[in-house]
């Protein structure tokens, strides 16, 4: 037994695609390669990495939506995929893609989720209105169809949907993409507040380095499906500076470019385990 909220052990995932004459050839595309890491209970952990590096795939594995080819994952001591029903009770997920019934109103979308999670609809409605207010969502638009809402408003509904079920573990896949600076800050404040009040564990992917640095205690860097570095923001900066011989690295963005850039990835070296 561990007190880890998330434990990922040697997880690999490859997607196969048939091409060529009658599908005679198969292209193998690695999404995850021998990924190992853990997130402590109550910790906020950030996953960084270029497009296509496997961040969303990793989140899908942890959300019981993707079965790894190798390795295993444990959520709050529950093994996937054997205990996926129990795992589903403790996770909330926000993804970048708009995943709603677009003709249904915000209220109908959220109340459907509430019911499917077995919540009392009246209580859930009050709660979702409260969350939306904190996120700066105009309450007058609560009954509008999702398709009439802006990207940012939709994203706030998605965040509310994940928080509505009050999960001890939040999987946030680019939760603030498409939000204006004010809304971005609202979301960050909300997440920080949530951690303070409920000790919620957070796994976050983002392309916003400031957000990662502000919200996360530790960061993991994915490149081509491999976890190439891990540590606090300062540790990553230091490691990047040492490795590339660029003592000038001072921002997380520089570290990101140095660590996740092509140069390091092309060498098929093993993931650079824990820093620190």
């Amino acid at each position: 037994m561990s007190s880890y909220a998330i434990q990922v052990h040697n997880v690999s995932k490859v997607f196969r695609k048939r091409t060529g004459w009658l599908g005679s050839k198969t292209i193998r595309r690695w999404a995850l390669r021998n990924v190992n890491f853990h997130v402590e209970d109550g910790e906020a952990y950030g996953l960084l990495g270029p497009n296509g590096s496997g961040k969303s795939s990793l989140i899908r594995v942890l959300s019981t939506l993707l079965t790894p080819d190798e390795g295993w994952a444990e959520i709050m001591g529950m093994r996937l995929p054997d205990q996926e029903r129990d795992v589903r009770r403790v996770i909330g997920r926000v993804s970048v893609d708009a995943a709603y019934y677009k003709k249904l109103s915000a209220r109908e979308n959220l109340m459907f989720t509430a019911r499917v999670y077995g919540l009392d609809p009246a209580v859930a409605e009050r709660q979702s209105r409260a969350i939306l207010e904190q996120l700066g969502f105009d309450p007058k638009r609560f009954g509008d169809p999702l398709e009439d809402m802006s990207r940012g408003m939709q994203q706030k509904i998605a965040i509310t949907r994940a928080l509505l079920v009050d999960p001890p573990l939040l999987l946030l896949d680019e939760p603030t993409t498409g939000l204006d600076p004010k809304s971005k800050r609202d979301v960050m404040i909300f997440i920080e507040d949530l951690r303070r009040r409920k000790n919620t564990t957070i796994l976050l992917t983002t392309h916003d380095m400031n957000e990662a640095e502000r919200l996360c205690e530790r960061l993991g860097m994915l490149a081509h499906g491999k976890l190439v570095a891990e540590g606090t923001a300062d540790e990553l900066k230091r490691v990047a500076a040492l490795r590339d011989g660029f003592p000038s690295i001072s921002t997380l963005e520089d570290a990101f470019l140095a660590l996740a850039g092509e140069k390091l990835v092309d060498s098929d070296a093993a993931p650079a385990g824990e820093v620190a």
Partner: protein
Amino acid sequence: MVRQMLGFVYRDWHLTRRYWSWVAVFTIYALVSSATVTLIGVAAKDVRLTLTLTVGVLLWSFLSVLFNEIAMSIAFERWEGTLEYTFMAPVSRLVHMFGVSLYALSYAVFRALFVLAGLFVFLDLSFRGANLWGMLVVLAASSFAFVGLGLIAATLPVMSPERGAEATNIFQSVLLLVSGIYYPVSVLPRWLQPLAAVSPATYALSASRKLMGIDTYSGQAPLRGAAFSDVLPEIGILLLMGVVLVPLGFFVFGRCEAWAKRTGKLKRTG
């Protein structure tokens, strides 16, 4: 668990409400095409034929809607991009799909009643003497088998978004052909007869005709609908098919879900 199941009813009801113009178009289309079929019997001045066609269109209206609603539920979610969220919810597939089926059933009943009411506008019909309660039992008994078939068909769009919907439509038209909706299955070519024998609609139809008194129709009213005990064999076969097809449907569904999670097919794109 009941609340979770009703959650799907809640969702599907609101979807129907929000897509009401499409619902209206399909319902009116169903009514008009049913009327055109039954008017063939009127033109032939053949009451027996008219009754046969009426029972056929009503039963088909009910069964095809039930089948289709279930079969398309997953395709729709994949299209909307909500499938991952629905599959992530802590709800068993049994509760999920029973919720979907429950709504599909109510919707199919409503549609069939609407078509029936509409037909009275076009036709001078009397069901006096028919065993209508018996008909209800037949509909209920055949529902299970069609829920099972719907569950199996629902997995097709997961495997291939476009091809799946095509396959569902082909499957449905083959059912229409072999089940003798508008004619006795005896007129089908010999090589199609085995398919008629395994289609649940065949038994629903044959039982309905007996209960309506179409087979024994003598030319004047009232109808002499068969007693319920006369259709017990058909009811038995329908229930047996349900007992096989519903668990088979869930089994196929479960296998398909596991496969989709291995190959990354739950995602809308890819």
